C-alpha cells in the first residue's frame, strides 16, 4: 500500500487543497457556532469566578489546584504532536509525515494558545499576571527564578513563539500559491504573508536552511517545555509529585496525546475535506504505529513510577499510590489505565488500524485517558499529602467543568478558522513527496531531486495557474476573498 498516489497531478493537489479553504458549508458554520457557544459558556463561568473568587470552582484547602492545571498540562501535551511530526520526523527523513504535518503544527500552536489560558484562569489575582515576567522596574523587583512556574512562563512563551514561527515559515511556499489564486482581502493577506515568495533557487535554499534550523531548535524546546511543566510537580516535595521520572513521563505522555489528537483530526479532515488522496490509510497506519510505540513507552514509564514508589517504601508516597488504586479517585484511575494502556493494543490489529471509524473512536478514548492521567497526577496527591489533618476528597464544580469544556471550544474555533484561511495540507511538501516517491521507483532519490534535467515536474510552488503541471490539468479555482 502506498502512502500517496504517485500519479497525482500538481494541479490536482493545488486544487484539492485550495478547495478545502473556500466556501464553508453549513456544517462548518454549525461547528463554528458550537465552538463559540462553548467559549461563551466558559467566559460566563470565568466572569463568575473572578467576581466571587476561586472558591466557586470548589477549590479548597488542600485542593489548591485541580482541573485547570490538569487541563493545562493536557493542552501543553497536545502541542507536542506538531513538533514531533514536523521537526523530528523531518530530521529523520520520514517523509510520510508530509501530508499531515501542517495541521499537526497548527494544532501545536493552538493547543499552546489554549494551554496558556489556564494559568491565567487559575490565578487568584490574574490582573497581576505580568509579575511573573522579568520586566525591569525602578523597584528592582524580579520574579522568583527558582520557581518552576516562572520557568513555565518562559518555556511556554518561547515554545509558543517558536512553534508559531515554525508554522508560518513552513507555510510560506503554500501561501504564495494561495496568493496566486486569491482575490480580495485574501489576496492582500497572502501577499503580505508570503513575503514575496517567488520560488527561485535562492529562496528555496534559504527556506530549507531556515526550516532545518528551526526544526533543530524546536526539538529540544519541545522536550524541555514538558519537562519544565513536569517540574511543577517533580520539583515539589509532595508525595506522588516528587518523582524523578516525571520529565520523560510527561514528554512521553505529551507525544502520546498529541499523536492521538492527530489521528482524530486526520479522520475529520479526511472526511470533511475529502483528503482521501493525501491522508491515506497508509499514512494513518504509520501514525497509528507511532502512537502505539509511544503508548507503550508511556505505559512502561507508568509502571516504573509505580514500581519505584512501591520499592522506595516512602510511606506517604505509597499511600498516595494506594489511594490512586483503591481510593475515591480509583474509578477514574482505572479508566485512565484502561484508556491509556489497554486500548492502544487495538493498534496491534492491522484491520483495526485501517478502519477509520474505529481509529477515530480510539483516538478520542486515548485522549480521554490522557486527560484523566493529568487529573490523576494533580488531585490524588493533594487529597493526601503529608499532613493527615488535610486529607480530603474534592470534586470540581460546574464552573471548572464549564471552563474545561470551553477550552475545547476555543481550540476548535481556532482550528476551524485556520483550515479555512490557511492550507491544512502542505501543498509543496506533498508535491515533494510525490516527486520523491516517483523517483524512488528506480532512481537514486538524490539524483531525482537535484537533477535539473528531469521533467518540469519539479516541485514548484509558485507558477501561475496552479503550477507547471505536466499533462495540463485545470487551473485551481481562485480563492474568493469575500
Amino acid at each position, binding site marked *: 500500500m502506498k502512502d500517496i498516489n504517485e500519479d497525482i497531478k500538481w494541479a490536482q493537489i493545488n486544487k484539492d487543497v485550495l478547495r478545502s479553504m473556500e466556501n464553508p458549508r453549513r456544517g462548518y458554520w454549525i461547528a463554528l457556532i458550537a465552538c463559540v457557544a462553548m467559549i461563551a459558556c466558559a467566559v460566563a463561568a470565568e466572569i463568575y469566578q473572578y467576581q466571587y473568587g476561586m472558591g466557586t470552582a470548589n477549590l479548597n484547602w488542600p485542593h489548591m489546584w485541580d482541573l485547570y492545571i490538569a487541563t493545562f498540562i493536557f493542552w501543553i501535551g497536545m502541542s507536542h504532536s506538531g513538533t514531533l511530526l514536523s521537526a523530528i520526523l523531518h530530521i529523520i527523513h520520514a517523509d510520510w509525515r508530509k501530508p499531515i504535518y501542517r495541521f499537526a503544527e497548527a494544532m501545536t500552536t493552538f493547543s499552546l494558545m489554549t494551554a496558556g489560558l489556564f494559568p491565567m484562569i487559575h490565578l487568584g489575582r490574574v490582573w497581576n499576571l505580568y509579575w511573573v515576567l522579568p520586566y525591569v522596574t525602578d523597584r528592582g523587583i524580579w520574579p522568583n527564578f527558582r520557581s518552576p*512556574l516562572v520557568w513555565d512562563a518562559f518555556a511556554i512563551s518561547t515554545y509558543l513563539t517558536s512553534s508559531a514561527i515554525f508554522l508560518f515559515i513552513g507555510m510560506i511556499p503554500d501561501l504564495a500559491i494561495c496568493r496566486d489564486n486569491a482575490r480580495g482581502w485574501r489576496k492582500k493577506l497572502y501577499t503580505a504573508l508570503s513575503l514575496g515568495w517567488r520560488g527561485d533557487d535562492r529562496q528555496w535554499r534559504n527556506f530549507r536552511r531556515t526550516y532545518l534550523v528551526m526544526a533543530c531548535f524546536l526539538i529540544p524546546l519541545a522536550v524541555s517545555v514538558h519537562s519544565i511543566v513536569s517540574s511543577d510537580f517533580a520539583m515539589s516535595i509532595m508525595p506522588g509529585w516528587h518523582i524523578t521520572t516525571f520529565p520523560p513521563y510527561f514528554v512521553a505522555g505529551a507525544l502520546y496525546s498529541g499523536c492521538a489528537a492527530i489521528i482524530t483530526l486526520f479522520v475529520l479532515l479526511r472526511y470533511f475535506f475529502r483528503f482521501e488522496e493525501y491522508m491515506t490509510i497508509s499514512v494513518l497506519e504509520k501514525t497509528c504505529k507511532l502512537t502505539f510505540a509511544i503508548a507503550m513507552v508511556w505505559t512502561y514509564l507508568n509502571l516504573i513510577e509505580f514500581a519505584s514508589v512501591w520499592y522506595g517504601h516512602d510511606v506517604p508516597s505509597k499511600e498516595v499510590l494506594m489511594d490512586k488504586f483503591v481510593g475515591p479517585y480509583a474509578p477514574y484511575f482505572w479508566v485512565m489505565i484502561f484508556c491509556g494502556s489497554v486500548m492502544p493494543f487495538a493498534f496491534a490489529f492491522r484491520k483495526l488500524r485501517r478502519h477509520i471509524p474505529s481509529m477515530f473512536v480510539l483516538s478520542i478514548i486515548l485522549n480521554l485517558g490522557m486527560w484523566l492521567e493529568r487529573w490523576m497526577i494533580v488531585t490524588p496527591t493533594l487529597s493526601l499529602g503529608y499532613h493527615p489533618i488535610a486529607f480530603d476528597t474534592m470534586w470540581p464544580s460546574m464552573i471548572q467543568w464549564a471552563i474545561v469544556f470551553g477550552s475545547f471550544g476555543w481550540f476548535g474555533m481556532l482550528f476551524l478558522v485556520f483550515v479555512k484561511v490557511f492550507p491544512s495540507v502542505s501543498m509543496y511538501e506533498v508535491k515533494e513527496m510525490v516527486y520523491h516517491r516517483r523517483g524512488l521507483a528506480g532512481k537514486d532519490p538524490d539524483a531525482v531531486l537535484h537533477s535539473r534535467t528531469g521533467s518540469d515536474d519539479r516541485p514548484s510552488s509558485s507558477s501561475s495557474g496552479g503550477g507547471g503541471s505536466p499533462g495540463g490539468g485545470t487551473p485551481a479555482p481562485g480563492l474568493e476573498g469575500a
Partner: protein
Amino acid sequence: MSLQNVLTNWSQYRKTHEDGGFYDYEHMWGMSVDLNKCTGCNACSVACYAENNLAVVGKEKFDKGQGMHWMRVERYWDEPDLAAGESTEFSEHGGSFLPMMCQQCNAATCEPVCPVAATYHTPDGLNAQVYNRCIGSRYCSNNCPYRLRYFNFYSYYESSWPEPLNMQLNPDLSVRDKGVMEKCTFCVQRIRVAKDTASRENQALVDGDITPACVQTCPTKALVFGDLINTESKLSKLWASHEVELGKTEQHKKNKEKRGYRVFEELNTDPCVMYLERVKEV
C-alpha cells in the same frame, strides 16, 4: 540598578542554612509547644482570629475546606496499643491535641516555588508572606507539607465583618481580599511594634518583649516564643535542654529520651517550631 539587584539576590538565593549558620540573620523567631501542657482548648486559635483579622467563612465554606484558621488545634484519636493491653472499646488516654501554626521553616518549601517571590525569608528568620505581591498561584500551599497556608477563596470582608464587627479589625495589618494566600506570621505586627519601640528608645530587644497572640492567651502556657539566635532567651534554652538544633534533618541527641522534636523534620524543612512530646501514664 536592577541588574545589580538581581545579581545580589542571586547570591542570596544560593545561600541556604547548610552554608553554615545563620550569620546574616538578626533574629530567628521560634516557638515551642509543650503537648504535655496543651489541653486543646482552642483559645490560641480564637486569639489568632482576633489579632490577625481572620475571616469567618461560615458553615458551608468551612465544610468545603475553605476555613482560615492560621492557628489550628488538631485532635487525633490514637489507635489503641494492643500490646500494652489498651482498651479497644474506649479512647482511654483521651485525644492527642496538636496546635499547628506556620512552622516558619528555614528551608521553607513554599518559598522557592512562589513565582513572584511573594513569600520569602526575612532577616528575622520569618517566612513572610507579602499579600500585595501575591498573585494567587497557590503553589506554596501545595508544597507545604504542613498544609498551613490558607487561601482567600472568596472576598470575606462583607460577609465576615458586618457592621459594626468591622470596628474590631486590627489596623496593624490588612484584611486580605480574594485571591491572596495567607498564613501565620508569628504576629509580625507585634514584632514590628516591639522592634520599633526598642529602637526608638535606643535599646536592644529583650527576651519577652514580643508575645504573639496565641502565646499570650494560652491558659496553660504551653506555648513559648522567642529568639533562637539569642542563646540566652528562654526559648533557646528550652531548645537546648531538649537537644533540638536548627539545621538538622535528624536530631542526634545525647539523651534520646528528651521530648523535643520537630514535625516532618526528615523532610529537611528545618522548622522553627519545636514540639515537646505528649506524656501519658503507662
